[in-house]
């Protein structure tokens, strides 16, 4: 086992390009923040108001699904591997990892880390934490990650994971927020426990209301966790959230309503952070049924949407046009030079004719549950499509039950993706044949073959080519319209400092604002 070379090979391979792409996407930070390079300081109580959270939130890591529980989890737990603010993998509970063939992965567990309860973190704890998401009885949302895993075992200080086929990106999956390392008893973790080895210790928690945490005095990272105390508040109403920030009730809020950003900036009492990432809004079409089974119809619809206008009106400019590409600018193999689709009525009509139609009638089902502004986005789409001879009948669905009764049930709907750090993870989850989240029920032979090849391809250039072709296939033959990448828009009080680069992989600095930020 050649630990050093291989590990470096994995981390360095292509990750620098990922970081470069991230830089190219550009971070829109206020001038005052860009200058602030002061050393982080200890102290203070950091209060963050989050637009999610519900009294039914679960402590079970397999069920974490909203920003509130994600930030709360990042405050008390560590994972095996962390994605840093440049998009690179860095060691967390695994101090190194390594594979000879891409199919057998060895993670070496860091020594001397303790849980809040005082128990030392052992490879057995890690094994139980991973196994919680595996097997027939598991209800975990990321159960499919472990489908290719044939075996996980403890070997001294190591955890050895065996896959049924090589996957160079497997360590990325181990950075997933669901994979919190928790203490085991009898080979199982207690999914209702707060106990973790993360930066803060839970003092009190009321689901859907608030959590208070104190700094973990034994935290193993010496350069993190700058606040003495953290309070995470659930403020679902966007106006109430904004009020809380403006009246000093909280220090940071997420999901700032695009309509209010200008007002907030004009007041000068808060900094706006607008972070471009991989998150995107989508309109999947069921490719199994007509008229969407005809790629010409799908292309006609893709040319009938005004992407620029969408970004301007739905995102308030805080986002970017997407070319029906689920891979975003923060991904390392992002294909930036694809032929760009613009709003083009002639081209849309041309594709309609190719499909043997003079005009097209389709029904689009939307609700703001899909993404905030989805109903307006649908109306905007219907308006531009009408100029192309396409009549979109917009049906507004209730938010309640949207994911059960509309998404993947009706043929043409609105939806969203948080984006993924790894191309393979994104394309496999959303577009591979038979994947449970392939919400357009799309089957493409060449795509499926290439996806498996790219996963285990070692040659960097070849791999990039493959991923570029995969993106082209999805963009021009896929059954999903992706008009825009939405930024993560947050606002902070003026005394809150962040690292120069804020993570683009997830909202609120990759959920880790409580660990990485400080007061000036």
């Amino acid at each position, binding site marked *: 086992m050649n630990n050093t070379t291989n590990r470096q090979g994995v981390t360095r391979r292509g990750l620098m390009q990922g970081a470069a792409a991230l830089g190219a996407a550009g971070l829109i930070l206020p001038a005052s923040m860009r200058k602030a390079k002061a050393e982080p300081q200890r102290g203070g109580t950091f209060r963050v108001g989050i637009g999610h959270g*519900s*009294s*039914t*939130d*679960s*402590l079970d890591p397999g*069920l974490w*699904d909203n920003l509130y529980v994600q930030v709360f989890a990042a405050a008390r737990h560590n994972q095996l591997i962390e994605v840093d603010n440049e998009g690179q993998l860095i060691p967390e509970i695994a101090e190194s990892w390594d594979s000879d063939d891409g199919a057998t992965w060895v993670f070496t567990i860091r020594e001397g880390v303790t849980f809040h309860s005082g128990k030392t973190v052992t490879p057995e704890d890690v094994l139980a934490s991973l196994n919680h998401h595996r097997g*027939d*009885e*598991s*209800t*975990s*949302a990321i*159960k*499919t990650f472990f489908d290719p895993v044939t075996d996980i075992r403890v070997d001294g200080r190591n955890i050895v994971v065996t896959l049924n086929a090589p996957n160079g990106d497997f360590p990325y999956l181990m950075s997933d927020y669901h994979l919190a390392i928790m203490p085991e008893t009898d080979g199982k973790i207690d999914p*209702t426990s707060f106990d973790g080895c993360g930066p803060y210790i839970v003092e*009190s928690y*009321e*689901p*859907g*209301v*608030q959590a208070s945490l104190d700094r973990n005095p034994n935290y193993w990272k010496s350069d993190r966790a700058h606040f003495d105390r953290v309070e995470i*508040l*659930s*403020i*679902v*109403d966007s*106006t*109430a959230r904004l*009020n*809380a920030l*403006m*009246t000093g*009730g*909280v220090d940071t809020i997420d999901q700032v309503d695009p309509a209010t950003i200008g007002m907030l900036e004009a007041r000068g009492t808060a900094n706006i952070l607008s972070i471009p990432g991989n998150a995107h809004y989508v309109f999947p079409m069921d490719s199994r049924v007509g008229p969407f089974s005809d790629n010409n119809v799908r292309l006609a619809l893709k040319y009938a949407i005004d992407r620029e206008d969408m970004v301007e009106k739905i995102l308030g400019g805080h986002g970017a046009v997407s070319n029906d590409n689920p891979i975003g600018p923060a991904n390392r193999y992002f294909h930036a030079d694809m032929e760009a689709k613009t709003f083009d009525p002639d081209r849309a009509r041309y594709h309609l004719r190719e499909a043997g139609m003079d005009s097209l009638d389709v029904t689009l089902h939307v609700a703001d549950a899909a993404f905030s502004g989805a109903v307006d986005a649908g109306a905007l789409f219907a308006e531009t499509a009408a100029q192309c001879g396409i009549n979109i009948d917009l049906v507004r669905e209730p938010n*309640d*039950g949207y*994911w*059960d*009764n509309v*998404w993947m049930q009706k043929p043409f709907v609105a939806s969203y993706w948080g984006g993924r750090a790894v191309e393979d993870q994104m394309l496999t989850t959303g577009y591979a044949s038979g994947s*449970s*989240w392939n919400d357009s029920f799309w089957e493409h032979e060449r795509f499926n073959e290439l996806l498996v090849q790219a996963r285990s391809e070692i040659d960097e250039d070849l791999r990039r080519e493959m991923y570029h072709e995969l993106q082209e296939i999805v963009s021009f033959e896929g059954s999903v319209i992706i008009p825009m990448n939405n930024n993560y828009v947050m606002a902070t009080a003026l005394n809150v400092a962040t690292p120069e680069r804020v993570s683009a992989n997830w909202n609120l600095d990759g959920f880790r604002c409580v660990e990485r930020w400080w007061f000036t």
Partner: protein
Amino acid sequence: MHAVLKMIAQRLALGALTLIVVSIVIFSATELLPGDLASAILGQAATPETLAAMRAQLGLNDPAPVRYWAWLTGAIQGDFGVSLATRRPIADMIDARLGNTLFLALYAAALAVPLALVLGVLAALWRNSIFDRMANAGALSAISFPEFFVAYILVLWLAQSGYFPSMVRLTPATSFGDKLYMSFLPALTLTLVVTAHMMRMTRAAIINLMAQPFIEMARLKGASPLRIVLRHALPNALAPIINVIALNLAYLITGVVVVEVVFVYPGLGQLMVDSVAKRDIAVVQAIALIFASAYVLLNLTADVLSTLTNPRLMKRG
């Protein structure tokens, strides 16, 4: 006295019967919600396998009547079971929230009831005067705006200027004075929303009575207008006033979800909305039953009190 006890017993029995019927309605209604708890918990992450595993885990495969009976017998003993979504005992989840909701309701009532009575009596006394018109116009405008609008106006005037917090954070350690201070804006919003109804009922009831012969007699005997209203008219107007107060109190307990959302107030309404969204049927049913009990009990109390204040109703009862 015997008649009073008999009347109260009758009303209580009727109330209990109402609650049983309500419990059946609540149970059937939650059964009709689209989707089930398993798919709601898993949301976008639901796959057929995880759904099946979750359903089996939650015991959702039993027939409805079996689940109803188990639930009802538990609820009667004060045991609402555990939340299906979080596995926490429902009694614990509701405990603090119910306390908060009752606190806010009583706070608002303590402001609104005296205010409404005084305004109503004065408006009746100075009928058609400038004061009467102003009080009516003010109360009617306050009730005409949607609650969230009233709330946001108060936030704009009183919170952004720094007088009161826009967000209510209650912990067991919060002192009573702090509680009063932090909850002032939501309580004031509710006061503005419910005062008009009670005030106008008071005014109408008293004006109605002022035309009665016994008031005329009091007036001829030379009693002062204030004495006539307070001693002769008000006690006779209590029945309808108590009714409208009870109705508004019930509203303060059950209908304040919007106010809770705006002020981030951790009350029962928010818990109910969350639980409906997640199909946490057990919690929804428990809260609905509590809300129904609040309505039935308050109406019962109003009924009994207004009967006691009116001997004529007593005889019929």
